[in-house]
């Protein structure tokens, strides 16, 4: 068995040179929390591991010219407490706070969560709702910005070819009073892989209370998180201090009915999604008044007698 070669680029030039060397049997390791698990479980030994942890300058969160730019090597622990996201990307900060355990959030990165392309990736659902794009660099040093959805293969998994790496994700802040929220359901209240997750982004009217437009993303019921703006449209015109509109919760249930009919998980997910919809709406109504860590315990994670 050939030994795995290890490269740890320290700057963009070294990264590009390393990417040029990649084959289909090479892997990039960012935090490692998904990759190391996969390698160990499968017994697969890559020909080359590119370790991104020595790269400087890819763990930023900046708000520039109406766009929020997040470095691919930002860890979940950084993102959950980030002051820029607290104001301009609450849903992403919330998603980061709900990833795994403290141990995992200390290493797991934004870029890794996107590149791993799990159907239930929490950060991905938040990014999809935020209409984010990813900046990808290749072995020739070319960078391209692509919509997040383009990074997922139609049948599941990553669409990133060997030799390309995500360096940044970004999303527009827009001019309106925008609020975002994330909610998930796991088998326990923390440290669980999402069985269902969702993110909501709403723009408010000038009154700061009425929904002008809304975007919804749902994860774990398809090969990748997807947008369901037609469902979110039920929120338009609603006041965020009012009860969650029934059209929205019913729309979320219909989504589950359409996407996973007949699956063993269908029966509970179609009920659970109602709780997620209400959690999202509750966070939108309260956001700006609570730091991420102080959100109330999500109702949807408590068994409700079913």
């Amino acid at each position, binding site marked *: 068995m050939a*030994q*795995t*070669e*290890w490269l*740890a680029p320290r700057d963009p030039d070294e990264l590009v040179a390393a990417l040029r060397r990649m084959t289909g049997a090479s892997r990039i*390791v960012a935090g*490692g*929390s998904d990759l*190391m*698990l996969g*390698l*160990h*479980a499968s017994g697969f*030994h*890559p020909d080359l*591991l590119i*370790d991104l*942890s020595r790269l400087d300058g890819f763990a930023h969160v900046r708000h520039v010219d109406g766009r929020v730019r997040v470095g691919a090597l930002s860890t979940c*622990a950084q993102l959950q407490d980030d002051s820029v996201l607290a104001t301009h990307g609450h849903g992403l900060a919330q998603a980061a706070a709900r990833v*795994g*355990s*403290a*141990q*995992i959030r*200390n*290493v797991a990165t934004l870029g890794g969560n996107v590149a791993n392309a799990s159907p239930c990736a929490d950060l991905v659902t938040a990014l999809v709702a935020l209409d984010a794009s990813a900046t990808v660099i290749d072995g020739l040093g070319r960078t391209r910005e692509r919509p997040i959805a383009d990074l997922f293969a139609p049948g599941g998994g990553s669409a990133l070819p060997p030799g390309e790496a995500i360096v940044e994700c970004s999303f527009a802040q827009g001019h309106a009073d925008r609020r975002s929220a994330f909610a998930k359901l796991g088998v326990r209240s*923390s*440290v669980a892989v999402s069985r269902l997750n969702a993110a909501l982004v709403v723009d408010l009217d000038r009154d700061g209370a009425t929904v002008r437009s809304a975007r919804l993303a749902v994860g774990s019921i398809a090969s990748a998180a997807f947008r369901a703006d037609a469902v979110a449209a039920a929120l338009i015109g609603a006041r965020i201090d009012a009860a969650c509109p029934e059209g929205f919760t019913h729309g979320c249930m219909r989504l589950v009915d359409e996407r996973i009919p007949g699956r063993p998980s269908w029966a509970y997910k179609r009920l659970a999604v109602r709780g997620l919809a209400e959690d999202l709406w509750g966070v939108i109504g309260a956001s700006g008044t609570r730091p991420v860590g102080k959100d109330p315990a999500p109702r949807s994670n408590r068994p409700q007698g079913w």
Partner: protein
Amino acid sequence: MRLNATVNGDPVSIEVAADARLLDVLRETLGLHGAKEGCAAGECGACTVLLDGLAVNACLVPATRAQNRDVRTVEGLARNGVLDALQRQFVASGAIQCGYCTPGMLMSATALLARVPRPTRAEIAAAIAGNLCRCTGYAAIIDAIETVATHQSASHGAD
């Protein structure tokens, strides 16, 4: 590749495979058996160690990640044969049943108290959410951590 790191205060220089897990290097190459392999999937926290002071799952971290960095395992808590405050309080509070989760619990608690000297019980529970106790002895574990935090804060005059 050659790995140069500090482990429990001592410099080490060893040969490791590029795709080796930190857990295997600690246990098999360095003979430090405190960090346990429970689930091998980052769910149970029995392998928790500190990397530059941050709690990580040694089963999910490449050993290469420790290059030129500081690794601390449960073996590094006691000084000169004397258990540290958390270890002593775990014993005093009966926070140990079968003991399998104890090294990981101690390392998560150590990371917490370094960052938040006077945590609330909710903060303690959140900090050890990634550490499963198969004996379900969580209440005594949280009590022990809270007791140490209270005593340390008092002795440092933090109040």
